[in-house]
């Protein structure tokens, strides 16, 4: 019976193939959107942990979170070095991680920071950073690479890296007079860190010492060796992360920073800000999910159309089966098994295509959009969606099956066509 169903499908492979194609594309879409939703959420909440406060120039909690943690968007203003030092020296503060942004290398963002970044930054479930190779900053012109940067650009320890002034791949202004040496490569974290390069704040100051307002100061050109003799204390930084000795002090500290007198600062709680950001994003993701559910519905309707059309042509086939002893229920089951088989196959193809797409485009998506897609197994949510698709396929298949049931009753042994 199964063989009959399969051969019958094979006999109509032209139209069936088209149905299968549309259906599996829509399954790919739905599963892809769900994957995107899930992995974005994962990478979102895993980007930062163990940090009590993030401090930046006063803007909004979302922009601050976006540029400091995700490397998305531009900081509105910088913080004075003196303010940073004053807050960092407070009694309640256990550690701070300074962050300076604005330069890039081949499209990857460069972060100016200190060794405290390597010591204190935590992601995921309180995981610390670890080196795959080499060490964190030692020499002034040491650069440390995130795992993805090293992989994508094929860099090894000791390679020379020239940092571009400003962001964007096509940046013309290069700090080619002060090249960096790859000192270390971090292990992959699955967070935006993988796509960052790290240099020390002193190095940041060094490559910008002969620059003002985004361009070189004419006539002033310090080479890499001379610059080492200068005072490389930073004057400004973009943001910093704060770890407190006791979480009890968090709100007190936040209030103190938000009302800081010498300049307008803002401190945010990363967990709360992440939650806020997620709420904004989840609306978009939910509507994407709804749209792809509509696409599934449309392609199931397409399948229904094709099955119903073919049913008319198959009336003779059904009568033959009836004549050799197939009961109406059996013929119904034949038709039903066809649509169930099609949805199953389309689901398998769709899931396969989704993984293929993730495999092919995960680097590009990570680079362009900062979303880290993983090649993990299906999530419970995805299984649930697949189950719903099967159910929808079954219900769709019921319509031609019931029609075939009536055809066999009407036609009997004397088919009309």
């Amino acid at each position, binding site marked *: *019976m199964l063989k*009959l169903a399969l*051969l*019958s499908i*094979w*006999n109509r492979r032209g139209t069936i193939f088209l149905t299968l194609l549309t259906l599996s594309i829509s399954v790919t879409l739905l599963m892809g959107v769900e994957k995107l939703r899930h992995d974005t959420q994962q990478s979102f909440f895993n980007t930062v942990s163990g940090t009590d406060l993030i401090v930046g120039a006063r803007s909004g909690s979302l922009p601050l979170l976006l540029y400091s943690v995700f490397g998305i968007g531009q900081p509105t203003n910088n913080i004075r070095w003196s303010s940073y030092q004053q807050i960092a020296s407070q009694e309640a503060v256990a550690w701070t991680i300074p962050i300076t942004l604005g330069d890039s290398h081949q499209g990857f963002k460069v972060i100016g920071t200190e060794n405290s970044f390597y010591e204190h930054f935590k992601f995921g479930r309180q995981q610390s950073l670890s080196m795959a190779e080499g060490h964190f900053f030692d020499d002034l012109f040491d650069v440390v690479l995130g795992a993805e940067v090293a992989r994508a650009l094929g860099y090894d320890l000791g390679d020379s890296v020239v940092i571009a002034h400003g962001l964007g791949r096509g940046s013309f202004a290069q700090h080619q007079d002060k090249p960096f040496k790859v000192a270390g490569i971090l292990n992959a974290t699955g967070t935006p860190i993988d796509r960052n390069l790290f240099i020390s704040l002193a190095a940041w100051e060094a490559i910008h010492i002969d620059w003002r307002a985004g361009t070189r100061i004419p006539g002033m050109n310090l080479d890499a060796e001379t610059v080492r003799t200068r005072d490389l204390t930073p004057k400004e930084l973009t943001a910093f992360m704060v770890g407190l000795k006791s979480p009890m002090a968090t709100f007190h500290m936040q209030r103190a920073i938000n009302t800081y007198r010498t300049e307008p600062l803002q401190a945010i709680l990363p967990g709360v800000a992440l939650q806020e950001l997620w709420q904004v994003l989840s609306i978009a993701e939910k509507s994407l999910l709804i749209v792809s559910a509509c696409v599934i519905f449309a392609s199931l309707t397409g399948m229904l159309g094709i099955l119903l059309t073919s049913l008319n042509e198959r009336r*003779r*086939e059904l*009568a*033959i*089966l*009836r*004549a*050799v*002893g*197939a*009961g*109406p*229920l*059996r013929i119904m089951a034949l038709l039903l098994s066809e649509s169930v088989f099609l949805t199953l196959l389309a689901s398998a193809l769709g899931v396969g295509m989704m993984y293929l797409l993730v495999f092919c485009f995960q680097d590009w998506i990570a680079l362009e959009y900062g979303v880290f897609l993983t090649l993990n197994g299906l999530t419970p949510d995805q299984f649930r969606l697949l189950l719903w698709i099967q159910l929808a396929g079954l219900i769709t298949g019921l319509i031609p099956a019931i029609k075939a049931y009536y055809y066999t*009753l009407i036609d*009997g*042994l*004397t*088919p009309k066509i």
Partner: protein
Amino acid sequence: MTQPCSVSLNQLVFSWKKTHTLLNIDSLTLHKGEQVFVQGPSGSGKSTLLNLLGGVLLPHSGEISLLDTPLSTLSQRKRDRFRADHIGVLFQQFNLLPYLSVADNLLLPCQFSKLRRERTLKEYGSLSAGAHALLEALDLADYIHHPRPVSQLSIGQQQRVAAARALIGAPEILLADEPTSALDADTRHRFMNLLLQQSRQHNTTLIFVSHDLELRHPFDRVIDLKTLNPAYRVN
């Protein structure tokens, strides 16, 4: 009257929407192995009769017994099973599934009926041997060694494959619904000879419905629905 009874109709009435009687047969008995030619113009209830005999339709009153089994006592599922086991059916044309090979088309009843599969195995040893024997008997031996798609067969050849399918596993009754109407005179003659010879050999009760009166001569009995079915005359 020593031969066992194969088909027996008694006080049979079948109507459409209760008021419109299509078929009304007082009494009809066919013996095992009897070859009957049923003639009648269109609208005389031929297809209704075939569907009733095939167990697809049930009469509103009266009784149909096939092989001493009253069909009305069986559930639809059991009637389907009964048809699979005991009745071969032959249509006017397009009898074959285009996506199955000649042999698979021929063996289709053995997929649906355990009884016919076992009978074939008992008689020939294997299903393919049974298929080969029937193909040879119907002058289609060529297809054993040179299988080709059903669509490449002529209509006459297709009808002979269909006849072989209706005969495999030796069903007791063969219902043929104008199986020669699409054939030309030569192939028709050849087809009729083979069909009659094979059903005779298997002692199958052949119920052959047609309005081509030229074909009736070799049959044991000719039944005219016009006279048998008073409902037709009323309409």
